[in-house]
């Protein structure tokens, strides 16, 4: 039996696969000690062989969640450069805010220590490191209470000798040491240092958490794997050594599941659309592979769906690339002082949540708007009875409740369309060529109308959309990453990286390179064949450059960083088909689609394979509600997928 456990802010989701069927359940999360809810949930099961785990513990700790504060971290840098971590890229996060602050410093100035050493831009050691000095600084740091150490020397991605010597000295004194060349061997001192610092801050927290959890897991004779932000599973050891890769591991699961669904349905271009309680996230899947980005800003603020540099803590590690907007079920609908109707960015959160949850909330949300428009069932997931009156009351504070609700839903759709346009248009892709794979508790409510906004004519709703993200972990492969910068000999560099990952005994290796035209300030990631040749790398780079930016240049290209994923393929659960026979008996209620229409309401588990219905219709299930607007058809496909077309 395999169990996927996704710890979210409100709920801890469990998806259980025993070779035949897939079952799901939810428990309330225990934020201060997330393992409590996890273990509680696992106790209900017998014969668990494997546990796959995604957790937001890393992100929560960095964002200062009470009970998870990061430990004091000391930072060791090249002399003269201790404040690189504070200055960052010297931009301020918001143009017109006179009262802005930089993200809280993870390492205060008196915990930064300067080491006399220097490596030049050609990798030569200009000034060797003095072990005695490092030892003295380590003692000073320990005296100031440091529990973990990060170190980042200039050009250590080219020649790590000095940094490695210093790291060895520090390891004699600190249990947790994060050296920049081990976590992020790439040029750009600020981002590399930040990655090392974030890693150092997370090592004690994630280490303690995983030790505690794996203690229990081993006790029941099972194995524990952790989801990484690049969409692969990793071992507990790897996660404890480089915990930066756990940041954003939760959302990665949904995209992995969407990619597998795309493969099963032969959809070569898909947008994953994940709408939950507070945000909506969009990613692209081309050729069944999710798009990956090399950098992420933890705790960063988004501007029209993209993270703004300088708002969070940069981490250089592969991440599944997602555009995110503040539009979820709990997102608040309001009117500003100028009288304009607005949606977000604030959320009513889980408690009290939307007014229609009947838990004392009185502020109107997107979920309330859906309730007013007749789109929600009388009993919601988690057994909450819909308080329709409360939704109407809340909405009527902003004007005619139906008009306001209808406008709010359309404003939210426009906001989400913006996120989808970003992830596609930025790459020179037309969203109209894509299918939308919609999940998350609120995704299927909005998917079809969102698709209309984008010119998309095919929407796929997987079974159990509310727990699809956890399901993704059951579909993920094992994936370990290694990288190096300026490898010189390309094939030799890839071979060395592959050798460094041979312990994982992978099914195959994936080779990637970050490439640019000489003189450019950014790189594009391209796949690399074997044997690796610069000519073919150039070709792939120029193709991608042409697609993304619309031109090629008569200029040499350079490979900045090469990267290998060692992939061990795992067995995927086969989602069961719905029954071949059955006669659904839809109920009816009035639903608003620009006008009130008497609309059939189906139960999804009553729909047999191949069943087709015409919009307007509502299809309800435990974890979500699918809205089929007029002009759309819905068909029940293999694996219980509901496909909407127009």
């Amino acid at each position, binding site marked *: 039996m395999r169990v996927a456990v996704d710890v979210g802010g409100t709920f801890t989701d469990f998806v259980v696969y025993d070779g035949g069927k897939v079952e799901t359940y939810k428990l309330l999360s225990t934020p201060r000690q997330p393992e409590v809810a996890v273990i509680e949930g696992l106790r209900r099961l017998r014969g668990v062989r494997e546990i796959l785990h995604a957790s937001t513990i890393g992100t929560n700790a960095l964002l200062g969640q009470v009970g998870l504060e990061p430990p004091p971290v000391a930072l060791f840098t090249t002399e*003269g*450069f*201790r*404040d*690189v971590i*504070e*200055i*960052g890229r*010297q*931009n*301020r996060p*918001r*143009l*017109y*805010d*006179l*009262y*802005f*602050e*930089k993200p809280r410093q993870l390492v205060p*100035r008196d915990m930064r220590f300067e080491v006399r050493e220097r490596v*030049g*831009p050609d990798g030569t050691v200009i000034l060797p490191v003095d072990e005695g000095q490092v030892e003295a600084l380590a003692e000073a740091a320990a005296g100031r209470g440091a529990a973990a150490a990060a170190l980042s020397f*200039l*050009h250590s*991605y080219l020649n790590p000798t000095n940094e490695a010597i210093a790291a060895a000295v520090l390891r004699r004194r600190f249990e947790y040491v994060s050296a920049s060349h081990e976590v992020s061997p790439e*040029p*750009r*001192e*600020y*981002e590399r240092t930040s990655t090392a610092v974030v890693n150092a801050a997370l090592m004690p927290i994630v280490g303690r958490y995983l030790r505690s959890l794996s203690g229990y897991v081993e006790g029941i004779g099972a194995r524990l794997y952790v989801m990484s932000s690049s969409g692969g599973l990793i071992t507990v050891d790897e996660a404890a050594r480089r915990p930066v890769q756990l940041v954003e591991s939760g959302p990665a699961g949904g995209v992995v599941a969407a990619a597998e669904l795309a493969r099963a349905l032969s959809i070569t271009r898909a947008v994953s659309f994940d709408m939950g309680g507070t945000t909506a996230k969009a990613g692209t899947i081309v050729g069944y592979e999710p798009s990956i980005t090399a950098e992420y800003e933890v705790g960063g603020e988004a501007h*029209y769906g993209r993270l703004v*540099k300088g708002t969070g803590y940069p981490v250089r590690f592969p991440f599944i690339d997602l555009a995110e907007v503040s539009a979820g079920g709990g997102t608040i609908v309001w009117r*500003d*002082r*100028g*009288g*304009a*109707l*607005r949606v977000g960015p604030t959320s009513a959160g889980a408690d009290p949540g939307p007014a229609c949850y009947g838990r004392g909330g009185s502020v109107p949300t997107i979920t309330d708007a859906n309730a007013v428009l007749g789109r929600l069932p009388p009993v919601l997931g988690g057994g909450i009875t819909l308080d329709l009156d409360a939704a109407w009351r809340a909405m009527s504070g902003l004007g005619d409740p139906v008009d306001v609700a209808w*406008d709010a839903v*359309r*404003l939210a759709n*426009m*906001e989400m369309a*913006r996120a989808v*346009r*970003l992830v596609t*248009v930025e790459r*020179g892709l037309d969203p109209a060529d894509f299918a939308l794979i919609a999940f998350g508790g609120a995704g299927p409510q909005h998917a079809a109308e969102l698709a209309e906004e984008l010119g998309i004519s095919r929407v796929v709703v997987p079974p159990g959309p509310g727990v699809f993200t956890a399901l993704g972990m059951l579909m993920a492969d094992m994936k370990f990453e290694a990288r190096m910068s300026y490898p010189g000999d390309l094939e030799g560099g890839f071979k060395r990286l592959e050798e460094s990952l041979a312990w994982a005994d992978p099914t195959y290796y994936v080779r990637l390179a970050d490439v640019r035209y000489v*003189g*450019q*300030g*950014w790189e594009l990631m391209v796949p690399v064949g074997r044997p690796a040749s610069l000519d073919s790398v150039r070709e792939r780079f120029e193709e991608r450059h042409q697609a*993304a*930016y*619309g*031109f090629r*240049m*008569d200029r040499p290209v350079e490979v900045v960083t090469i990267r290998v994923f060692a992939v061990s393929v795992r067995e995927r659960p086969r989602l069961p088909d719905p029954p071949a026979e059955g006669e659904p008996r839809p109920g009816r209620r009035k639903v608003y689609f620009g006008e009130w229409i008497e609309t059939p309401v189906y139960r999804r588990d009553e729909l047999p394979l191949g069943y087709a219905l015409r919009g307007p219709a509502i299809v309800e299930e435990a974890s979500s509600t699918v809205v089929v607007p007029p002009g759309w058809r819905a068909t029940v496909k293999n694996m219980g997928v509901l496909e909407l077309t127009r």
Partner: protein
Amino acid sequence: MRWELVYRATVYIAEEAGAALRRSALSPNIRERMDHSVAVLDAEGRIVAQAEHIPVHLGSFRVGVGRLLEALEREGIELGPGDAALVNDPYIAGTHLNDVMLLSPIHWRGRIVGYVVNKAHHVDVGGPVPGSINPWARTMHEEGVVMPPLKAVEGGQVRRDLLAVWLANVRDPATALGDLNAQLAANVVGTRRIAELLERYGEEVLEAWDSAIDYGRRLSLLALAGWPRGTFEAEDHLEWGEGLLPIRVKVSVRDDGVTLDFAGSAHQVEGPLNAVFGVTYSAAAFPVRCLLGSDVPTNEGFYSVVQVAAPEGTIVNPRRPAAVSGGNLETSQRIADAVFRALAAAMPERVPAAGSGTMANIMIGGVWRDSSWSYYETVGGGTGGRPGKDGVSGVHVNMTNTMNTPIEVVELAYPLLFTRYMVREGSGGRGRWRGGDGIIRSFKALAPMRLALLADRFKVGPWGLMGGEPGSPGRAYVVRASGERVELAGKAVLDLYPGDEFVLETPGGGGWGVPHG
């Protein structure tokens, strides 16, 4: 159809056009530093929605678009479908020669119902100095090529003759062409998506735009209602040669808006510090925008409450052909400071002390390994102490927000070895709330090279408020390989030789309130 939906859609279209520009631009300056802006205008040229990333473009569009439409009418240039007008004449476009502006009409049912316009900073537009920011320029003709308003695009095609003239006069024609194509791509995306909006919602789109502008004005006036009425004056200075150039402003706050009058400011100078009126408008509008609050949309509704007057022939509204490249960079900072200072008299509890007030521009170049190179950097400083909060150290203030170039990237590309990049501790002014500290950035030359510095606040530090002390002035010096030390002025040009170390220390922000103890 609700106007909010059309307005949101229009804002997103401006953003999407901006993304298209960024995506296809060749130069890192646009791609990475986001030195560009896009706006959607109605038929009268009023800004409906704007996607901006750099404050100095804020209001310059308003001035620039108005003057461009006037000039087109004067010249009898009509823009048909697929046509676009180009201009970089700073006295029209409203910033400096590097900022090339491209305007495309939106045709619908046989008439022009609006425009999409964008502005992007080209890395080089010719002239005697790479990068076209020439510290020695006395007129704009020593800065770069001047393009008057021209119909540069006809029926979707860039005019070849015009393009040839342009490309023959810039140092890196491939990049210039790429960036120009990117600007055209942005307008194509913008006009196409607005046309889709019009197809879907018809005439109501234009009504919604009016509502959006009314909304911007309404929000601005509501925010302004919390400001005291009256006239408030202040003066600040730029450093030039041995003297100080005053920038004076009189801010009048009324029920229907704010007027900023710069009468009494210094006469224009024979140097690049003159700020064209578009820059002055931007820099004067910036403090107003900051203090009105973040919710105010950047459209004509906001601009309509900000009136700016600047006498011709001054450093804040020069007569052509005065040089203007540094007006954007340094003078804009001081204009904003002067306005902040005046508003501090009106609202002492809301206005921070002065920030570093300089972009501290460093331009270096030479010949190395048989090829010529040039490197441009701006260095942040400290923000002023704020009522209730210390200032922030090591950031850009006021009118710029560009990123630094990573040291590892610079060292890989140029013959420089950095020795320090750190917070300049103690440079923020003391106060109840301290000013943020400036930055120390220093490097050694590994080859012969020429360095130009264009910085300010080297003589007088950024002012404190309410009894707070000023921040430390900036300074720069060179330690020659021989050990000899040469102090530099804020505006300086000198040659460096291998082993020479250049050190720049940027100003800290002023303090706010009387310091404890």
